[in-house]
């Protein structure tokens, strides 16, 4: 069993490496950017699904945690990581050195966002429903405005990922490999957390908090756990964003971005990981694919949202998952 698991991991890893090498040659840079943005949107949407869809706590400030991850990882790379990377480049081939360094930047962003999630979550998750939504929105804006006023990360000018002390070191990571490796890790971790006996606590809190506590579920802790895990992955998504763009500005993490993530989660179906993946992919590519329509583009995009909600109020997949057992049922 465990040998088979290692083979599977190795197969997935080599597939990612192959894609990483192959895709940039066939896709023009514009499409390549879209594919990367889809991956980042999927990570953020799936992590938000844990809070909004599975635990039933309506957070609309997820972009704030992406901002923390994006900026902390960027600052880490510029002020600390560039030196590490230069050292690594001296002893390893460039691709390997970059592959060794990048996870550190991502984890730095994720951990910073997780800490922010803990600090915001403990007071905010005492609130319910609309009040929680407003509080998370407020906290996200506080985070964004706070970053906007920090000069070390560029303030209102934005923050280019270039280290003055190590001008030769390239801190941009544009590959598909890292993004989609994180996409896979996010989906697997959150699916396994949720679809296990212990993970039933998340859904129990969503279904009925009073009943959940009456059978021994520490509801507040469960909510904070969900919030912290989700913030971690949002932070990693932010880190991938800043490092793939090579530049980061707080405008990318306004409440509009938060709302967009909520739209992915609701449209995909609250309580469906694959639904969030699907919605994030479709809704991230739709505005780009509709570009040919000029000024009608956003009108069509909005109509797409409205029609979907009218036709399927429970979201594309409801609480179901598109997985192997679903495929088996469909195919006979």
């Amino acid at each position, binding site marked *: 069993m465990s040998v088979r698991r290692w083979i599977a991991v190795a197969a997935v890893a080599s597939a990612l490496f192959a894609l990483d090498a192959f895709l940039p040659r066939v896709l023009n840079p514009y499409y390549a950017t879209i594919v990367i943005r889809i991956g980042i949107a999927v990570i953020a949407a799936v992590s938000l699904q844990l809070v909004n869809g599975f635990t039933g706590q309506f957070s609309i400030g997820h972009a704030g945690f992406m901002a923390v991850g994006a900026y902390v990882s960027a600052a880490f790379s510029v002020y600390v990581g560039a030196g590490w990377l230069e050292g690594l480049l001296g002893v390893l081939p460039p691709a390997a050195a970059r592959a060794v360094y990048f996870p550190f930047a991502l984890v730095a962003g994720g951990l910073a966002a997780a800490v922010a999630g803990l600090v915001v979550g403990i007071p905010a998750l005492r609130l319910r429903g609309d009040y929680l939504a407003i509080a998370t929105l407020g906290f996200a804006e506080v985070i964004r405005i706070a970053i906007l006023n920090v000069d070390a990360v560029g303030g209102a000018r934005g923050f280019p990922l270039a280290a003055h002390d190590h001008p030769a070191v390239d801190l941009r990571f544009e590959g598909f490999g890292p993004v989609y490796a994180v996409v896979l890790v996010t989906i697997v971790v959150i699916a*396994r957390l949720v679809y296990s006996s*212990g993970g*039933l606590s998340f859904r*129990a809190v969503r279904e009925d908090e*009073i009943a*959940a506590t*009456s059978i021994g579920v*520490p509801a507040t802790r469960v909510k904070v756990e969900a919030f912290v895990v989700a913030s971690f992955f949002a932070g990693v998504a932010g880190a991938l964003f800043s490092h793939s763009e090579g530049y980061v500005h707080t405008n990318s993490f306004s409440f509009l971005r938060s709302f967009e993530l909520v739209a992915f989660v609701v449209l995909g179906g609250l309580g469906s990981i694959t639904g969030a993946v699907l919605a994030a992919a479709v809704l991230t590519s739709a505005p780009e694919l509709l570009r040919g329509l000029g000024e009608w583009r956003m009108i069509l995009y909005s109509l797409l949202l409205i029609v979907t909600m009218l036709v399927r109020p429970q979201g594309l997949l409801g609480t179901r998952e598109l997985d192997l057992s679903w495929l088996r049922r469909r195919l006979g």
Partner: protein
Amino acid sequence: MALLEIRNLTVRFGGLTSISELDFDVEAGGVVALIGPNGAGKTTAFNVITGVYAPTEGSVRFEGREIGGAKPFAISQLGIGRTFQNIRLFRGLTAVENVRTALAASHRSGIADVLRPPAWRRRERALAKEARALLEKLGLQRVADAGAGGLPYGEQRLLEIARALATHPRLLLLDEPAAGMNPSEKQGLRELVARLRDEFGLAIVLIEHDVRFVMDLCERVTVLDHGEKIAEGAPEAVRQDARVIEAYLGTSGGAS
């Protein structure tokens, strides 16, 4: 020492006194009924015992330990299970998932859930088996994989009891378990309560309006009215008690 000892319990919400200076004991393995007209404070008593409300005054001791004001999840983990008057199931989950949630509630393990080592798999299988065994004990095996929200009323009540049992309680509080049941379901419930006491060694407190229902089931009946205990004793004696008749039916003059 009694399993549950309530002494001098008073619960006030602002100016409203819901329970006033209540003394109430439950012995291990005993079945006690709590009856009284609407608004007598029965459900409030349950909510204080399970930590939903904190006592304004007085003490609640379970197995000698003070639990007044403790958090509901902590009280559940100490060994008090309950059901609700207006059924509170996890309606979006299946029947067996409802029970599994309760079985796994107290020991969650995030990292193991993600890495899924062999020990995790064994535990997961054991939990699934235990959940199904419990459903079978209550005659719910047929609906194990059905959505809890879609079950008929009587089965929802039973599932709520199954879920409470999954926390391995020593004291079980049933809030109007027979409400909305037909006579044959009520008979079944009566047999079930007796079985729970004998097989699981549970102490049971049940809130009930139907005095006949508790007659041959409970060794003791406590009657509340306007938050005060007005009678306590064997069911037959309580039924003849003048104050109880007055509380339920009013005085013979009808006035006041």
